[in-house]
């Protein structure tokens, strides 16, 4: 729902990159099916159930990096290599395993975007 909230700010060719499983924390949260239907009716949407994928790949804390990977091809400011370097730098203090997990998550997201764009 929060991705839809800012719809009037989106440029005609702008892309929505979002997680598809909602984080329901208010009682009147809209129906998930209605949200997905509204999202899918829009021209440029890249969505993925990042929480499920993160769990499946045993990267439970890196769902946000999957999303960053999904957004990477559209950012324009920084390319994927620069983002990878930044991820390595930010997580360096937490050890190699954490860096590797976050890079893996990032690549999963990037891969998903590239596939959905070429479709």
């Amino acid at each position, binding site marked *: *729902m929060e991705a*839809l909230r800012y719809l009037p700010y*989106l440029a005609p060719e702008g892309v929505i990159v979002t997680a598809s499983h909602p984080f329901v924390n*208010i009682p009147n949260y809209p129906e998930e099916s209605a949200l997905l239907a*509204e999202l899918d009716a829009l021209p440029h949407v890249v969505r993925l159930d990042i929480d499920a994928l993160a769990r499946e790949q045993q990267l439970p804390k890196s769902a946000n990096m999957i999303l960053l990977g999904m957004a990477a091809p559209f950012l324009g400011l920084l390319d994927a290599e620069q983002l990878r370097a930044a991820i390595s730098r930010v997580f360096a203090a937490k050890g190699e395993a954490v860096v590797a997990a976050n890079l893996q998550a990032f690549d999963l997201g990037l891969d998903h975007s590239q596939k959905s764009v070429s479709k």
Partner: protein
Amino acid sequence: MSEKRLLLGDEAVALGALHAGLSGVYAYPGTPSTEITEYIQKSPLARERGVRSRWCTNEKTAMEAALGMSYAGKRALVCMKHVGMNVCADAFVNAAVTGVKGGLVVLAADDPSMHSSQNEQDSRFYGKFAMVPIFEPSDQQEAYEMVAEAFALSEALRLPVLMRLVTRLAHSRAAVAVGEAQAQNALSPDDERTRWVLLPGNARRQYASLVAKQAEIEAAAAQSRRNACEGGWNDKKPLGVIAAGIAYNYVRESAPAGLPVFKLSQYPLPAHQVQELAAHCASILVVEDGQPFVEEQVRGILDAGYPVQGRLSGELPRTGELTPDCVARALGQPGGPAFADAHNLAPRPPQLCQGCGHRDVYTALNKVAAEYPDARIFGDIGCYTLGALPPFRAIDTCVDMGASITMAKGAADAGVHPAIAVIGDSTFTHSGMTGLLDAVNDGSAITVIISDNLTTAMTGGQDSAGTHKYEAICLALGVEREHLHVVVPLPKNMEEITRIIREEIEYRGVSVIIPQRECMQTLGRKLRQKKAKEA
């Protein structure tokens, strides 16, 4: 300039001030200005240089302390949100009469559209009222650079300089090319008592000299490189634009090529450039965020009948912040969102956090108030203002900081009973104490609740000036010991709290109840920091 940093508008101001040789920042938190002082508090350069940066009790104490530092010859910065200008107006206006010694920059962050404020007053009016130069940067880079220029002009003219930001500039980030830090001023207290002692004889002389300086400050604005004529000013055009501060970006986004634009970032409004623009254009559109400050003056400068467009004439909306879309439409360009509002949206009104002590305070108050149909609850400004919304719907008024106690007192004087005030700890020291003294001196029948979460929560958890001193302050102001209570707002204490509120309502004098429990957010932050340290 070589190094680039990604900075909020607020941070650009902070770094600009540090690099300009700042010796002290004096501020009371307020959105969207808070991050300026926070940046300085965390800055290694500020620590190394001993830059004074603790939070002040309110905007007036901040302004006066900064004036004192300026008197001593050093550069000082005062920061606040726009309504803070009301609180420090006495000091601000008179600082223009005494003048300054070390550079004094007063930064007011305006909040058009009232994202987190109770009005959208435009601080530029205060600058004009006090007759001082006003700087209004258009972007983060200018914000950084213009602070140093403001300090220099302040010292050259011996006047405070007002710098105005708006929310969008204060709270958005851009890459800023930054320079080197210059030295701080040496201690050199002023000796000219005739300037600083504003007895009528001196004040008349000082005021005359302030009026005489007006030509000089207007010339400074007319020559400023921040005020620039762009586009074709040669042949006659149907429309010219005056774009003030941040509005310049919106104009640039949709201006057709060759459109004559006067970019305005330093005031007083240079009359000559306005006349020049009018001579080349059949009409002028004034684009400015906030109130029609420039538009009104342009109407005064030009002949009656010359078509001036803007917020007053309806080309731009009279209220609310500007958007690139509304500016595009005013320029006759296509503008408007590509996508309409989504259908499946649920609003998210702000709420008190789960576990917040203010919740228990309102639960108790609502319980007791239900027994008194005539009860009125006078609220104040802070997180606890959210008690106005469901599920509590507990408060009847919220006007300005401190008004809970004084309005309850006035209503009690008029015969309202029970008259209950709810005020936060930081708001109490900001401007509740003096009102409480009035109530004590009058023996007014009010029940004051100081809901103490040990912090200034609404603006992000800054230190609160009176923490651990509230009982002592109330006693010293004359509240009677037996009518002063400290309680812990937790569901398990509900019976005790409601009993005390009931008893104190029945007491026809001033009573104070202090529910005291730390804010969930600052508590969580401290626990996380502790954990990180241990790891």
